[in-house]
């Protein structure tokens, strides 16, 4: 494979594509709503109507508006149909020839769509993720070619650094800096790992990227491999994402077939292979050192850092670990330049971010927005607000994050601002809660999660989460006192400060943030608030006797 062949494939693919494409989502969400039947229905209808020469039906990746699936979109006129039933397929096809349909037509001018800015999801929902040719047709793998032939590894690292891209897995560590660190480490053998263990409940951005545009991830990893001097990459995907695994596997095979992965990519000296490792149901494996343990075939127990994986990672070798979304940004940065990328977002948080907008909100789904947009814009404009009632809080960052009260909806969405209000970006889960949501229960829910997902290696996390959970339960049962509440808060800080890895360090966040913003919800459940029974009789305490010092206490 060389540059010309790549262009030829792209050209050939484009020439083969029909002028009208009916895109039907085949990602997990829509599949669950029976989109495969819709897809088949559309194909049959096209055949029936004998439109096969100018119309094709394509099973595509995620369009984002998951709550309204199955979604069907007509390209190029951009008509969108929502909640399509298989028996509506024929009438939708008939609209191409002037017919009418009873299918619900979506409003593509709605802020949910119009406010988005798509970098990573640029092609999601527009191409068939199971065909590499479609990816190549939209310019895929050109960035890889570009780095191999026009840039030195150092230049690539520099470009990424200049773009201002930060880790999309939650921590927000500058990606370029991480790459530079691994690139500088001595050693023949280095590894690239893609963290696809998206474990935060309420987050499915990475699943969508892997399902909808798997090559984007592979290309980003290959570029990273070139930049840091690694020839072997692993994608660690959680087993709960079978479709993502299947599509990544297909994508790797196809890329290998075209010489876009494997030995001497684009006939250059650069070799890069990618293997998939499948998780087995352990949230903690999203933590990078635990993930490495898991790839090595062990229990997902994190280990103390330093040394960081960049210094000593997989099998003790320098290892670059980034999240799916991070890698999915790489090709765009290489193609369009660091300056272009850095022009998006805020001063410290560049580019776009995908969020999974869920919970008590009218428009559920995936959105990609420029950094710096406010929570209010996302929740009220794009999300359309809470169906009946008002927003109470928005939870970001999953079990590691916090609950941001409605009064702070004007907070801009960027790493620093979210941190400042006691939450975090996390991987991009954004769960909206309305006035009916009990915030203590929410804290308890997350603590239940953490107590179940702690690996058990270090004591604060292993038992601290169990104790916190029972303290929350005690509060919810109206059995707790103010002293219990204080003890709980003290334990939160202890678990936060002494746990070995990020899971424990962030496990108390949902409690602390709800305590901070919704203290009355805790206080009104305390025993004193329910029935005032002071444990000590305030009067008649003093005995007849003994030293004043003691009794004065």
């Amino acid at each position, binding site marked *: 494979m060389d540059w010309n062949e790549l262009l030829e494939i792209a050209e050939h693919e484009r020439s083969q594509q029909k002028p009208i494409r009916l895109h039907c989502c085949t990602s997990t969400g829509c599949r669950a709503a029976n989109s495969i039947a819709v897809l088949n229905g559309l194909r049959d209808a096209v055949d029936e109507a004998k439109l096969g020469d100018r119309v094709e039906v394509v099973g595509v990746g995620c369009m984002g508006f998951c709550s309204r699936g199955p979604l069907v979109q007509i390209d190029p006129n951009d008509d969108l149909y929502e909640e399509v039933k298989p028996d509506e397929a024929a009438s939708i096809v008939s609209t191409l020839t002037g017919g009418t349909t009873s299918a619900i037509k979506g409003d593509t001018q709605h802020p949910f769509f119009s406010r988005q800015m798509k970098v990573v999801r640029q092609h999601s929902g527009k191409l068939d993720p199971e065909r590499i040719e479609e990816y190549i047709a939209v310019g895929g793998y050109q960035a890889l070619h570009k780095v191999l032939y026009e840039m030195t590894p150092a230049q690539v690292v520099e470009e990424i650094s200049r773009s201002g891209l930060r880790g999309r897995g939650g921590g927000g560590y500058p990606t370029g800096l991480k790459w530079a660190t691994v690139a500088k480490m001595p050693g023949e053998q280095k590894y690239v790992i893609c963290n696809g263990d998206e474990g935060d409940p309420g987050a499915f951005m990475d699943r969508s990227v892997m399902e909808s545009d798997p090559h984007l991830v592979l290309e980003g990893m290959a570029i990273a491999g070139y930049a840091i001097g690694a020839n072997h990459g692993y994608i660690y995907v959680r087993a709960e994402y079978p479709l993502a695994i299947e599509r990544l596997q297909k994508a790797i095979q196809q890329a290998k077939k075209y010489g876009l992965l494997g030995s001497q990519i684009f006939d250059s000296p650069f070799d890069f292979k990618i293997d998939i490792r499948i998780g087995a149901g352990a949230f903690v494996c999203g933590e990078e050192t635990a993930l490495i343990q898991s790839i090595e075939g062990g229990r997902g127990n994190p280990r103390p850092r330093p040394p960081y994986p960049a210094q000593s990672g997989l099998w003790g070798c320098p290892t670059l670990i980034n999240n799916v979304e991070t890698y999915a940004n790489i090709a765009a940065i290489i193609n369009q330049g660091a300056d272009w990328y850095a022009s998006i977002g805020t001063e410290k948080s560049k580019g776009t971010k995908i969020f999974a907008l869920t919970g008590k909100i009218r428009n559920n789904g995936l959105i990609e927005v420029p950094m710096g947009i406010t929570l209010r814009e996302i929740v009220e404009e794009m999300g359309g607000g809470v169906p009946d009632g008002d927003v109470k809080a928005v939870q970001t960052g999953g079990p590691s994050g916090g609950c941001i009260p409605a009064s702070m909806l004007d907070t801009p969405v960027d790493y620093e601002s979210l941190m400042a209000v006691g939450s975090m970006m996390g991987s991009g889960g954004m769960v909206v809660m309305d006035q009916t949501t009990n915030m203590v229960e929410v804290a308890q829910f997350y603590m239940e999660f953490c107590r179940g997902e702690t690996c058990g290696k270090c004591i604060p996390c292993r038992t601290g989460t169990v104790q916190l959970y029972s303290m929350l339960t005690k509060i919810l049962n109206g059995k707790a006192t103010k*002293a219990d509440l204080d003890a709980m808060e003290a334990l939160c800080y202890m678990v936060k400060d002494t746990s070995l890895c990020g899971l424990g360090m962030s496990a108390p966040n949902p409690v602390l943030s709800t305590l901070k913003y919704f203290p009355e919800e805790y206080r009104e459940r305390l025993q004193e608030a329910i029935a005032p029974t002071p*444990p*000590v*009789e305030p009067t*008649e*305490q*003093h*005995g*007849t*006797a*003994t*030293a*004043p*010092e*003691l*009794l004065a206490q």
Partner: protein
Amino acid sequence: MDTLTQATLTQPKIRFATVWLAGCSGCHMSFLDLDEWLIELAQHVDVVYSPVGCDLKEYPKNVDVCLVEGGVANEDNLELLLQVRQRTKILISFGDCAVTANIPAMRNLMGGADLVLKRGYLELADDTRKLPHAPGIVPELLDRVMPVHEVVPVDIFMPGCPPSADRIKATIEPLLTGHKPVMEGRSMIKFG
């Protein structure tokens, strides 16, 4: 003149009590192991309530210092402990059963009181097998044996199974002169 003697001369006596919840009485026995120091203690305290040292049946008001032995295992324990807390200035959790629930709490591993009752009165009886039940007389067992501080606030913790007489003395003696004992180090806070 030592400080203790001096204190006696200048201060009225401390109202002193001991209480025994679910435990083996070993802590009380260790208290009695103070031996002749008890005679000295008697000069500084009025024992106003104690299973080994007083015949009064009702826990009085205005108690200055109370040693509470044992965990909280049944309704009577609970009721008495709440009363003790309300009427006592300095409550001392006395011995491992009070501090940790200790051996009586081994039944907590069985997940409730049912199994131990069943074993004792149904399996291991020859005649008239039944569970003791007489409301107001025979207190119901609580589901879980608890250390004292899980039920009421505690001022001083004196672990040990039992705490030695030396430890008991070192805890009580400062109190007699109005000082808080220093509960530190192997001699004062070792469990077991």
